[in-house]
């Protein structure tokens, strides 16, 4: 967060509507996203209650567990969910291309994208994945083959979603708060209905008025948790009715009423996001997502084992490092793609912008460790930004992302940077390779690094699910038989 973000929040509150936080869309939207709105039974870690799922906003598939404490019905639910999700994943992930590189690699032409309402939905998907991926399809406790396969994909997608910028499984509230600023707190933004109320209120209502409707008892929560009053007054009776008659109709009706409003909101939000133009970084990150899906596809098809229960200490440390690297390069790429995001960094002094007022093209120095003199031109920029970068800091400009520079000098109103590379091989900087006087330019310490370049993580960082070091965990008979109560 930044002072700019706080200021915009205050401004949004006063204007009674959400304000833009981005000028482009920093997430890829698939042509046919799969929306998944799950509900779980209160008091249980991973007991599914029902879900609405599908790729057609007008025709969701409703899945329910009419008696959520019944183990067989739960597995039936997972099998039904698999029957919707797996063909979608298979169809998309089986179309691959080979990318020419030093080591050629495979990439899916497109990738699956699962959209859930909130981070709670991702967590729940991960729990469902954990509770189903070790199940056996033969012998005692056998389940439908779709169940463990669904578990593996849900686990994969939920794991990928932890990496900043991955678009394979996304939580809608996260996407919306990355693109709009409301006049309410972060805790309230976690409620999809309230958040959308600020961003896209119904005709005739202000943002706060529409958000207040989200607190109305008639507005169902976006899940996965249900409203306790709904449980007490509707669900309990509907389940009792099923127990007595074997008819799931009442449970279906009750859950439909809870799920449909959220389903519609997720699609409304997809519509809002798709009106924004996709950023180059988002397209590049989607390319990586497609590589990851191809790797996972190949792992499964090659007979690889399901993901382990917990990472070893080494694997956990590596994973953390990869998560951090993804976070950094994602933040930087967003700023490079979007002046409105960059403004947040300018407000905090780690980026600055202004007009070039002086250029010394003839300057040559012997760089540390070098022998020969090389051109190191100086460019002086006038800025009113509160620069907090120190002398010697490496910086880059979004308009010249491949050229690095170093802060050489600072005054109250100017910053001088030394251009370090990207000037050609001649004794003089190549024409146009150095910003000219009068150009308006922005420099920052952020570096999008990898996310804009190599489409693949280095080999030693490749997770084992993608052909890296072998897993240490082999599912046991116990896992297959693990009760689910």
């Amino acid at each position, binding site marked *: 967060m930044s002072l700019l973000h706080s200021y915009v929040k*205050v401004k949004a509150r006063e204007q009674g509507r959400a304000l833009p936080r981005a000028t482009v869309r920093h997430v890829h939207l698939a042509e046919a996203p799969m929306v998944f709105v799950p509900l779980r039974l*209160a*008091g249980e870690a991973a007991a599914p209650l029902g879900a609405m799922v599908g790729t057609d906003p007008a025709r969701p598939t409703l899945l329910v567990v009419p008696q959520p404490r019944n183990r067989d019905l739960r597995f039936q639910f997972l099998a039904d969910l698999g029957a919707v999700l797996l063909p979608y994943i298979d169809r998309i992930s089986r179309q691959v291309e080979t990318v020419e590189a030093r080591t050629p690699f495979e990439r899916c032409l497109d990738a699956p994208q699962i959209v859930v309402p909130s981070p709670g939905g991702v967590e729940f998907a991960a729990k469902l994945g954990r509770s189903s991926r070790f199940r056996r399809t033969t012998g005692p406790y056998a389940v439908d083959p779709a169940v463990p396969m669904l578990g593996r994909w849900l686990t994969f997608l939920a794991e990928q979603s932890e990496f900043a910028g991955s678009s394979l499984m996304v939580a809608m509230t996260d996407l919306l708060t990355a693109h709009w600023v409301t006049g309410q707190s972060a*805790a309230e933004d976690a409620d999809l209905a309230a958040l959308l109320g600020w961003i896209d209120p119904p005709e005739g209502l202000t943002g706060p008025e529409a958000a207040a409707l989200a607190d109305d008892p008639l507005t169902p929560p976006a899940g996965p948790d249900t409203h306790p009053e709904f449980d007490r007054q509707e669900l309990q009776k509907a389940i009792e009715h099923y127990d007595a008659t074997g008819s799931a109709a009442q449970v279906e009706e009750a859950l439909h009423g809870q799920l449909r409003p959220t389903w519609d909101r997720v699609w409304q939000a997809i519509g809002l996001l798709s009106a924004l133009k996709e950023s180059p970084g988002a397209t590049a990150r989607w390319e990586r997502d497609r590589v990851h899906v191809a790797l996972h596809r190949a792992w499964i098809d090659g007979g690889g084992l399901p993901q382990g229960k917990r990472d070893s200490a080494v694997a956990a440390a590596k994973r953390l490092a990869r998560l951090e690297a993804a976070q950094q390069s994602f933040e930087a790429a967003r700023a490079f793609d979007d002046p409105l995001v960059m403004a947040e960094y300018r407000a905090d002094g780690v980026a600055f912008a202004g007009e070039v007022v002086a250029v010394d093209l003839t300057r040559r120095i012997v760089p540390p460790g070098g022998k020969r003199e090389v051109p190191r031109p100086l460019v002086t920029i006038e800025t009113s930004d509160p620069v907090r970068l120190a002398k010697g800091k490496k910086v880059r400009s979004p308009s010249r992302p491949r050229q690095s520079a170093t802060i050489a000098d600072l005054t109250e109103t100017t910053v001088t940077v030394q251009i370090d590379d990207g000037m050609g091989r001649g004794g003089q900087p190549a024409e146009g390779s150095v910003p000219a006087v009068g150009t308006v330019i922005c420099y920052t310490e952020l570096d999008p690094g990898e996310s804009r370049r190599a489409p693949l993580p280095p080999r030693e960082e490749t997770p084992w699910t993608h052909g890296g070091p072998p897993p240490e965990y082999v599912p046991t008979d116990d896992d297959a038989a693990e009760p689910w*109560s």
Partner: protein
Amino acid sequence: MNRLDAIRGATPGQDHNARSIAALAANPACDRRAILDAAAIDKPRLMRRLRFDDRWGQSPFAIQRNQQFTDLVKANGAAHLLRLLRTLLDLPIEEAGYVNLEDAGGNEGQVARHGHTRRIIRQTAEGRGRATILDRPLLRLDVAGAQVYLEPDVIAFQLGGRFHIVAIKSFAIVDDQADTPKVSAAAREAAVYVHALRALVGRDLVSHDVILVCPRDFTNEPTATTVDVRHQLVTLARQLSRLTRIEAILDRLPENLSLDLDALSPAQIEAAVAAIPARYAPQCLSACELSHLCRREAHDLGHLDALGRVVRDDLGGIESVQTALRVATPGEPVADDQAEIAERLRHVARLYDEAVA
């Protein structure tokens, strides 16, 4: 009749429990909450009278699940629990004294039950008796002059050692990891029991490590871990001592303030609540039944606190939305102590306008 009773009037009060006492710490700076709690005002009832949605109830499914799991852990003389404690506390095998304290010689009253608990616990502490598992104890705590009875799940005793509070919760520990907010809530609640038990037998005899018993993975099988609640104990003690200074807050309130919920009209209730200063912040949303009311009021008054801690800290020193936007506007007069933030705000306002233009 004391002043707090007068405020509550003839409407029945709301009994405290460990959860409500633990929640006191969520917003320690709020006078409104302090008064309402000290006067035992039934906050859910207050909100219902003002027609706010009540999301504080627990789902019947959650209640059922919790009951089932607790019963399972305590079944057969708490066999499961003993097994877990043996590993966790290194209890020798022969230590297996299970005592159900609920049975106070046929006397069901709270006073009698608490008396019974107290006797057995003292005996145990002095090394007489063989109790290691004390089921259904009833403790007592003084909260702002009122006696509050508290019912921890179980108290465990290590011979020659110390008492441990045992909390049985039905949220799962999956692959050795549990949901952090749920563990924190359990820890805050358990700290209340530790505090109450220490008041009875002394500080040194009660461990600050409470034992959390939860289902493992997706099974019903109980597993146990210890949770250090020292931090929660400090917060709780501070909060309880603050309640004893309730007089000072009362002195600042209108003479004849009444919150007699059954006697007053909704408008009168709202006015009475408004007369007690609040300190709404978004943390209240998950900790205090009054939050939706206080939130509306805070927004009506343009309080910056209502937008969250980050905003408040970023705009340090500015209290309201209106002031923030005024000082961000070039040419508007600015107080000396706001000159610096005003300059920064004007800069970000310009950056924002340029970027969205």
